[in-house]
């Protein structure tokens, strides 16, 4: 028996995690059986992630559509509490996320901790918006006639989200939370380069009372998956924040087919630590105006 083998026999072997997709609240492998190698920022092997297929993307859209009536019909208070619960669960797994962010981005543990903390705080911030966005986006309109006239924001529907390639946790949370807090459901294309924190985040979402299907996460090739979603006729909007220029044009052209709402990639590099403002929520809201006569 060689020395190396002897040493291995003495050590406890770690139980590795299988990283799968997150669709409809479950964790399936890609139906295609495809996977791809994910490495750390230093090039070391981390895991084999699932490489989502077109069928997976369609399943994810179906799951998001199925979840939409329940989630958009839930009270704002309820949605806010669930987002806050996500923050609680994320805080509880702080150490795990710090380690994953260090692996993915090659940042120091201190910096990674700052990013994870910011992600938790961002969820808390958005959670509070659930029952306030209506007050700042809605209006009672003084029409020139005997009518009650009220405009209120409503969620757009199923939103495809191309997550930023950098900022595997903070960036991801910063694009998911504003979409779902108002009642949309989503299909997220995770960072292709650093997808592992997204699946760990899915574990957090799955244990936070978030109904299955509200957030669906696909790992794999963004250049493959994003156009499938952009051309899908049952997707109402697409956030192209994480798409490169070429992919963004392809997706925007495909999105025109059913007039999806398109949030284009930002013109300048995003500082995810900065105040996000309300733009990411309002991009995926419709305004409904209801008229009713006033009389006796």
């Amino acid at each position, binding site marked *: 028996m060689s020395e190396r083998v002897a040493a291995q026999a003495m050590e406890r072997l770690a139980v590795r995690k299988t990283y799968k997709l997150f669709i409809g609240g479950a964790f399936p492998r890609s139906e295609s059986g495809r996977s791809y190698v994910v490495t750390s920022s230093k090039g070391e092997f981390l895991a084999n992630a699932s490489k989502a297929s077109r069928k997976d993307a369609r399943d994810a859209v179906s799951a998001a559509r199925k979840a939409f009536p329940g989630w958009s019909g839930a009270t704002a208070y309820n949605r806010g509490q669930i987002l806050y619960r996500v923050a609680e669960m994320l805080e509880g797994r702080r150490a795990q996320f710090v380690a994953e962010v260090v692996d993915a981005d090659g940042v120091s543990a201190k910096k990674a901790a700052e990013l994870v903390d910011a992600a938790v705080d961002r969820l808390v911030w958005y959670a509070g918006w659930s029952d306030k966005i209506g007050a700042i986006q809605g209006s009672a309109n003084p029409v020139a006639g005997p009518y009650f006239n009220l405009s209120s924001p409503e969620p757009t529907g199923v939103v495809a989200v191309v997550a930023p390639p950098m900022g595997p946790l903070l960036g991801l949370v910063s694009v998911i939370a504003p979409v779902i807090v108002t009642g949309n459901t989503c299909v997220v294309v995770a960072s292709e380069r650093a997808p592992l924190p997204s699946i760990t985040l899915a574990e957090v979402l799955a244990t936070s009372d978030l109904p299955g299907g509200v957030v669906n996460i696909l790992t794999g090739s963004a250049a493959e998956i994003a156009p499938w979603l952009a051309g899908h006729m049952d997707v109402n909007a697409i956030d192209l924040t994480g798409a490169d220029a070429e992919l963004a044009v392809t997706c925007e052209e495909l999105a025109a087919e059913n*007039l999806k709402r398109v949030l284009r990639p930002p013109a300048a590099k995003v500082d995810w630590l900065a105040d996000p403002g309300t733009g990411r929520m309002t991009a995926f809201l419709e305004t409904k*105006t209801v008229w009713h006569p006033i009389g006796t």
Partner: protein
Amino acid sequence: MFEYAPAPESRDIVDIKPSYGLFINGEWAEPLAEERHKTVNPASEEALAEVAWAGEADVDRAVQAARKAFAVWSVMPGSERAKYIFRIARIIQERARELAVLESLDNGKPIRESRDVDLPLVAAHFFYYAGWADKLSYAGFGPDPKPLGVAGQVIPWNFPLLMLAWKIAPALACGNTVVLKPAETTPLTALAFAEICQQADLPPGVVNIVTGAGETGAALVRHPDIDKVAFTGSTEVGRQIARSVAGSRKKVTLELGGKAANIVFDDAALDQAVEGIVNGIFFNQGHVCCAGSRLLVQESVAEELLDALKRRLSTLRLGDPLDKNTDIGAINSAAQLAKIRELSEAGVSEGAERWSPACPIPDKGYWFPPTIFTGVAQSHRIAREEIFGPVLSVLTFRTPAEAVEKANNTPYGLSAGVWTEKGSRMLWMASRLRAGVVWSNTFNRFDPTSPFGGYKESGYGREGGRHGLEAYLAV
């Protein structure tokens, strides 16, 4: 039915020139493009005037003028911009009668409608947005929201001057300059508006009007130096625009087609519902994107309602748009008439039952009688496609859930109507209808303070109200 003596509004009040150039940089410019076309009165097929169809080079001149004017207009104090827009509103009120007649001549809509609906709303829209020009920092878009730049605006023929107002008023209030293309069949009130800009001493280049057809509009939309595209029209053209701006930084708002459900429950005040149905689909000859073109009536009252509706339709007067007694005017163009006929014939051939009141049709001009289809299935073309004419498709339902399901079963989502005396049911329906405007116990109401725009394939962005500012601010 009562006999009415004709009561025509005099057309002497309008002074139509034989031919028009383009309005660029505050003055009339000879077009570089040589193509010219006649705009006709759809009620008589008489040519009213000849207008230019601007080419790419003309559009470029207009955009350059707007760009130059942006340097002046965008830095002018909001309070001064406001006063120009208030001036425009006042001049529109002063010339309202003339503009109403001109609109009815060029478009074919009844004078009662252009006089009592279109023109008052046009003036109100300019008044409303004039007041925003110096209050933008209170509008919820940050402490100092900035204009976008030059807006390219393309508008349809169904409400020519009103759609111009919806586009130009908020654009100017926010500090943008505009190049606007009116529809090729209804350019005359936009050209009259150019004169109003001159009378108001609006700085040259702030408003530019280029006439033409689809190709002129396309040249405007793809011009590299515009920052904003605002379009009202068909979903098909909206799709092309959305595709053509891909990868640019142009901000886009689209107000597109519709196939609205007007839903009548068995407890509704049926006489009022009948008036609402008539207003919903026969107002403006049904040339309304938010028209209530699908009547969903609860099965238990379907027969009673349809009898009352047919009685009411038999009293509608179709004919001379300038006659103050006219309810239904002319179809705007031969092309639109052909489309309405084609879809109506499809309705018959797919098995629906067609009904129109006895209705004399004038010899000249483009006309289509008010028409009802019963026995319509959701799969029929007349239940799915926008007809944009005075044609109503009637379907029935049994439960509120079925009504919601059928109402939402369309790629469009512009408007919907609900008729019921039960408040909780009305609000339940309103919250489930995927449409940008829900009229309950009323239909086809518009107001500058009230946001208007669609869900799904009816487009994006809102016009009217505080919401309408967002389309013209860099936010």
